[in-house]
């Protein structure tokens, strides 16, 4: 047990899984000798060698496509995409192939793999180093989508994702990578996919937030607490399949819900969560289900803090929802 950041926690999960299962291989652009742009795979090349920590050409479609073949053979590839923004050259392979490989073959073949990619804004990276594409993959049947908000969850969820029999998108909030440190066990452990967590208990409004925005939700909750509004915060951790029961239980108590996410609003995951809640807990809703999200524009360079749903933009929606 020691204080670790998320980069270290993920690195440990990779190391443990590779050590205990020789089918696990890591691959991607500069993941080997360089250890990845964010140094998440550092040291793995030295420990496991070039046959299991593989530097690939610059071609995300090729990375995911070859990983599908490796998975079909029986390996457990863990491809890294340098930024989630660069996942789109691999979109066809993920959406048309990996997601449907088991289904279309009637279970003859499966596609156990974990695609890791940093997501989110806040590093002044502009349009193509900041996006949060989770909704695309949630809309694609056959995938699972995970987004941890802290080092402890990241380590346990990644272990589960690697042991899962199906393709998992594992999105890492890059703004959290080195910003948050906490006690993380040195040994391997798992956190089951599909289980959310109540991060803060409260009475008046339920907030669902994940990744880097969880911290903004917490900051907003602190702020409105001073005005007598008590906020319960749920971190779903696994975005899909969603732990809807946990959210519904919370809404049954509070009667109000706000979802926060960085991605654009239109057809974002917020709409899905809120519509599911409207379906399951309609009579409990005392106020319109609400969202605070990135805008329906590309991710801007200069005004990124205005674009992001930071506490400043969450607070008014919390107050409005609580006082509706």
């Amino acid at each position: 047990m020691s204080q670790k950041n998320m980069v270290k926690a993920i690195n440990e999960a990779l190391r443990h899984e590779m050590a205990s299962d020789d089918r696990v291989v890591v691959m991607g652009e500069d993941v080997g000798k360089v250890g990845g742009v964010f140094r998440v795979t550092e040291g793995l090349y030295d420990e496991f060698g070039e046959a299991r920590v593989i530097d690939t050409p610059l071609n995300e479609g090729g990375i995911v496509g070859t990983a599908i073949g490796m998975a079909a053979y029986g390996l457990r590839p863990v491809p890294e995409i340098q930024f989630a923004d660069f996942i789109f050259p691999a979109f066809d392979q993920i959406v048309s192939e990996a997601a449907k490989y088991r289904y279309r073959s009637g279970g003859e073949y499966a596609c156990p793999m974990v695609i890791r990619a940093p997501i989110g804004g806040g590093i002044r990276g502009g349009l193509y180093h900041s996006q949060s594409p989770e909704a695309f993959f949630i809309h694609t049947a056959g995938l699972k989508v995970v987004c941890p908000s802290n080092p402890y969850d990241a380590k346990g969820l990644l272990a589960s994702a690697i042991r899962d029999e199906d393709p998992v998108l594992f999105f890492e909030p890059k703004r959290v990578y080195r910003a948050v440190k906490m006690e993380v066990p040195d040994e391997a452990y798992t956190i089951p996919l599909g289980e959310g967590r109540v991060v803060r208990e409260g009475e008046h409004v339920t907030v669902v937030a994940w990744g880097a925005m969880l911290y903004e939700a917490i900051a907003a909750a602190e702020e409105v607490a001073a005005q007598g509004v008590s906020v319960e915060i749920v971190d779903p951790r696994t975005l899909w399949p969603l732990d809807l029961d946990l959210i519904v239980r919370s809404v049954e108590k509070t009667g109000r819900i706000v979802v926060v996410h960085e991605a654009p609003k239109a057809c974002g995951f917020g709409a899905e969560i809120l519509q599911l809640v409207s379906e399951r807990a309609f009579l409990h809703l005392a106020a319109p289900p609400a969202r605070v999200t990135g805008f329906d524009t590309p991710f801007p360079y200069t005004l990124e803090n205005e674009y992001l749903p930071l506490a400043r933009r969450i607070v008014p929606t919390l107050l409005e929802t609580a006082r509706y």
Partner: protein
Amino acid sequence: MADLLEVYRSAVRARLLDERLAIHARAGHIGYHPDAARAELVVVAATLALDREDWIFPTPRDHAAALARGVSLERYVDHAVGNADDALGGHGSPGMFASRALRIASPSVQVSQHLTHATGLAWAARLRGAKEVVLALFDETAADAGDFHSAVNFAGVTRAPIVFLSKTDGDEAPAPDVEVREKAVAYGVRDDECAGDPAAVLEHVGEAARRARAGEGPTLLEVRLRKEPDPLEALRAALLHEGAFTEEADFAFRRELLLELERATSAAFAKPAPRLESLFEHLYAPSAEGALPVHVEAQRASLRAAYREDPR
């Protein structure tokens, strides 16, 4: 090595299957049928040039590979119909037949995407120290698509044990004026070519597979197919001429196949559709408790409710 008679017999099965399923497709009994487009001899010969533990990545047109590995006509027709006995559970559309036991991979409908999978599997086999080789089939137009570039490039970089086989339509001019085999140099991959006759294919695929198995890396093999006159007819004439069989024997062989097809199709159409619940199977690996994810279970229940009186 397989002999031409064996190739011929498998190819005739594929051809008669094509003719039969084309009728059912036209009549709307099945969704559609991607036929072999007269390339069955090439596909069969390439398949028989491999060892049984080698892997094949076919296109949806390459059912001849599955037949050559022993898939019965009934099993394939069950798939084309998508009935309750379909190996793919009625999920995959016609031509997507796959079998892990036979090492026939799941074909991609997106032209060329399976090529990258093939490279990955070959590379994985090599990383694991296996001696297995991969054959990846494609039609020449697929070389324009993006995954051809990824697949051959990754194969070049990894020296994966793979044979990319282009079934090139020799009656169509390439555009631009570049043969598929000429693209190999862009990836540092060995290229080769041969005519579409089965003896040549047996030899060239056999040799490319041998090189791959020996660690000498990938080959891009362009097979130039002439579809006129019908190559299967030409082989039949040659084998007859050589005395490999008599007209009567060939006739009897084909009649037997037609009867088999008749039985297979009657049986296939008589079988029920897959159960309603099968819609939700093989989406994810079954959980230990057999439960579906909550959202899927809700959808299953709603479908069941809408079809309450339906016995399926």
